[in-house]
């Protein structure tokens, strides 16, 4: 078994082990989950070290790394077990492994049906890693759909009652299922369009030139809706605020940190190389929707009185920047977009964790009910400021790099749209600073005289993310180098 199978299936193994632990041994359950995700994190580190930055990645099978397969699975339908990484998927795999590990630590205070929670969480982990590692469309689809089940239960059972968890859970489920069934049709269409019929994603990419214009247009749109719901792109975004707010902290982190990235990952992995002509044709649409996301998300965030909703809407805004970058179809824009995906994953994870920390203590999230927390909990306030400054794109922190690259990449291609989008940066600064002022500054609200400081465990979940945010802000090369050659290779399809 290669590292990719291990990183995918060790969580599943952990989930199965957890089911056999007696209900009373709560610590054992948590430790198994921790060990499983810990091993995955180590494997991820090993992948990072062993990754060859110079290889070009998809669609050349030789450009992929850590390849396993293709091993025949259902030969009569040409389905195989085929996994591999390139500069596009590796950052996502690293992000997933890191966030899953952190989320297990962040879930330490879960009280209700522990075994169910942790085994579903690990199943979710398997689904996510599988999605990023698969090179067979069918395999990808199975993983893609498998993620829905644990997510539904995690939001529905462990979510917060006052935020309508049942409603949010089924809304998330239905929305994403609409997207995935369209993806299913696209998958079958590719199967019958290729000769010989295949689900091998790399082969489909190589044969992309033979697909007719109309075929590409329809398939592009079908896949686009599937991925747009995940990103989420306006107007398919309405599930997101509900789901994020209702979900328990760790699940919000995974939702915003990893699941949203699957949308943009899908656009990079499927839409661009498999329907290149249509991608070029619809580039402007992506840019416009990106701009809408940026500005609409920021305006909505500004209007929120609930801290978690504010973070949720800020995700919509930040994913818009990523869309704008990829819409440029130039190497710079695409690298920026992928950077933005990774950075948003770490920054938004921090923000949700921080919201969770304060929610655990005061059991509300109303921005206006806070005030002056800076004096009472200085360490918390420090980390809080770091995360939100990173989100507003302060130079020197990682958020800035991705945003800047996206805007610089998009500017030569879509001048007006980029200029309009840039107002979003100002709006972001507006809502972040305004919120920081209401929460941290001013006189201390007397209700919080006894507010305890952030605990060691909570700092442990935030510290690695904070370190990444700072380091990548000053020195982005370690991440940038991973993706450059793959993204250059991908952009080559669109080179005039």
């Amino acid at each position, binding site marked *: 078994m290669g590292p990719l199978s291990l990183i995918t299936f060790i969580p599943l193994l952990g989930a199965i082990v957890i089911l056999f632990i007696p209900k009373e041994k709560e610590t054992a359950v948590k430790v198994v989950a921790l060990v499983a995700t810990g091993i995955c994190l180590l494997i991820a580190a090993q992948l990072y070290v062993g990754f060859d930055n110079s290889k070009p990645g998809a669609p050349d099978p030789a450009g992929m790394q850590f390849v396993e397969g293709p091993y025949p699975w259902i030969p009569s339908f040409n389905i195989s077990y085929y996994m591999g990484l390139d500069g596009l998927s590796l950052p996502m795999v690293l992000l997933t492994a890191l966030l899953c590990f952190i989320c297990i630590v962040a879930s330490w205070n879960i009280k209700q049906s522990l075994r169910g929670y942790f085994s579903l969480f690990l199943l979710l982990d398997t689904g996510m890693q599988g999605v990023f590692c698969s090179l067979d469309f069918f395999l990808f689809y*199975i993983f893609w759909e498998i993620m829905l089940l644990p997510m539904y239960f995690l939001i529905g059972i462990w979510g917060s009652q006052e935020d309508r968890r049942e409603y949010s859970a089924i809304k998330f489920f239905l929305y994403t299922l609409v997207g995935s*069934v369209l993806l*299913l*049709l696209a998958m079958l269409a590719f199967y019958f369009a290729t000769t010989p019929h295949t689900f091998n994603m790399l082969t489909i990419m190589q044969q992309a030139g033979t697909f007719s214009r109309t075929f590409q247009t329809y398939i592009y749109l079908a896949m686009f809706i599937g991925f747009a719901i995940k990103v989420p792109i306006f107007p398919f975004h309405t599930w997101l605020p509900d789901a994020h707010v209702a979900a328990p902290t760790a699940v919000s982190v995974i939702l915003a940190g990893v699941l949203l990235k699957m949308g943009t990952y899908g656009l990079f992995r499927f839409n661009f190389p498999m329907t290149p002509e249509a991608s070029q044709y619809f580039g402007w649409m992506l840019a416009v929707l990106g701009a809408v996301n940026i500005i609409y998300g920021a305006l909505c965030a500004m209007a929120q009185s609930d801290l978690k909703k504010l973070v949720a809407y800020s995700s919509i805004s930040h994913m818009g920047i990523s869309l704008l970058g990829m819409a440029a179809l130039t190497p710079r824009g695409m690298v920026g977009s992928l950077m933005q995906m990774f950075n948003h994953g770490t920054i938004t994870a921090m923000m949700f964790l921080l919201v969770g920390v304060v929610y655990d203590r005061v059991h509300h999230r109303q921005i206006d009910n806070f005030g002056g927390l800076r004096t009472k909990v200085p360490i918390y306030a420090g980390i809080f400021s770091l995360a939100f400054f990173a989100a507003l794109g302060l130079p020197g922190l990682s958020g800035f790099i991705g945003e800047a690259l996206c805007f610089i990449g998009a500017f030569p291609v879509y001048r007006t749209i980029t200029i309009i989008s840039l107002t979003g940066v100002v709006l972001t600064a507006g809502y972040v600073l305004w919120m920081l002022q209401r929460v941290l500054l001013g006189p201390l609200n007397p209700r919080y005289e006894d507010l305890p400081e952030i605990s060691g465990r909570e700092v442990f979940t935030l510290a690695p993310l904070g370190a990444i945010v700072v380091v990548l802000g000053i020195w982005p090369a370690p991440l940038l180098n991973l993706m450059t050659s793959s993204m250059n290779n991908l952009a080559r399809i669109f080179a005039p």
Partner: protein
Amino acid sequence: MSPNNLESLNYILPEMIVTLSVLVLVILDLLVDGEKKRLMTGVTVAALVLTLFSIAALYRAGERSLFEGMMALDAFSLFFKMLFVVATILAAVFSLESADVGSRRIGEFYALLMALVLGGFLMASATDLLMMYLALEMVSIPSYLLSGFQKEVRRSNEAAIKYVIYGGVSSGVMIYGLSLLYGMTGTTNLYKMAEVLSTSQPYPLTLFVGIAFAMAGFGYKVASVPFHFWCPDVYEGAPTPVTAFLSIAPKAAGFAMLARFFYSGVAHQAGAQLAFTGVDWPFLLAVIAAFTMTLGNVVAVWQDNLKRLLAYSSIAHAGYMMMGVVTLSGEGLRAMMFYLMAYLLMNLGAFLVVILMARRLNGEDIGAYKGLGARSLFVAVVLTIFLFSLTGLPPTIGLIGKIYLFAALIEHKWYWLAVIGVLNGVVALYYYARIVRAMFLEQPATAEPIALPGRSLALLTAIAAPTVLFGLYWTPLIDLADRSMRMLTGP
């Protein structure tokens, strides 16, 4: 090649075993006194297992036309016969678990069940219009009796009456359609009919009316729109093991007959494709399929009784399977057959849970399932597997079945139907998830745990495990469907 009437007897061993077992059951019922439910179930299952072996043995016999063109012996019919047998074995075992079927009249019950199986066998292999009609009636009449089996229960009686009335009208319309076809072609043999239709120029309106009326019979058996009205009431009122059985066996028989009627009787080979005289039948079938699944799914959303909900869901699934027939291709047929196997597992599984829980939760309403996850995690998880399989989520056989159906549609360029089909899956998720939500997301009225006997647990596992495992590796099933696609091509 075609054996004469006497020689044909060699090829109907399964039918003979079933007939014999009907007689044995009736006589045994008279001889044995007292508690005989287990004994009768044992005899029935034993006879069915024997039948299964005799069917498997016939797989090697090749394709033949039996009884002067009345019946076909081919892999296609054998496949459906195996499907009935498996469904009947499960239904018989379910009856053991259910209080709906009492001990006193159990012999009668199984005798009727076996008579129904015989009818199903004939439906699967009939190649003559008259034979088809007789076989259909042979399935219908025991179905009426079985659905009204609880004489003392009003709902059961109502179900039987409704079933009889709808069934009577449908088969009347059907035989009228068949008579028109006979009038036009001068034959009742399917193959000769196809030959005449392709060479002569039949009057289009008569042809249309004839086939459309014949469709009434098939549509009624598979419960497709607009012949579905009986379905929810009968499913709700009938004893649950009977409902479970009716949801799969007559439906499968209906599809077998429908497919044979169109493939062998109406269409003719034009090059590599099947072609039609006069009317664009695939398009009409596609419209029926689209309406059937949409109606079934949309109306199911409003149901609070689980049996009624599963009835509407079975209408929807008839629509899905109809999509396989629409393409009039080997791929479509194979997908339909694969889906039937999937449907057998997941639907019978869901009904088994309803049977087991009816007494323990005091009802069949979704509300009664509130908090089942906390009271019996195993049952709740197993039901979730079946429901998600019916929805078409991985890793279950339901998803694979749907993928084969959609693959057939896309290969044959039925894009609009495929889009309607997949979107229907989303509607379906909503109402299946309502049950899941009640079980896991809502609090139980009492926290008292539910304990099931080991036998029930084993039975649940025996159905749930293949539902998941075949969702991960389904080569054996698709190979079986592949081998079983071959229909007899000529008299």
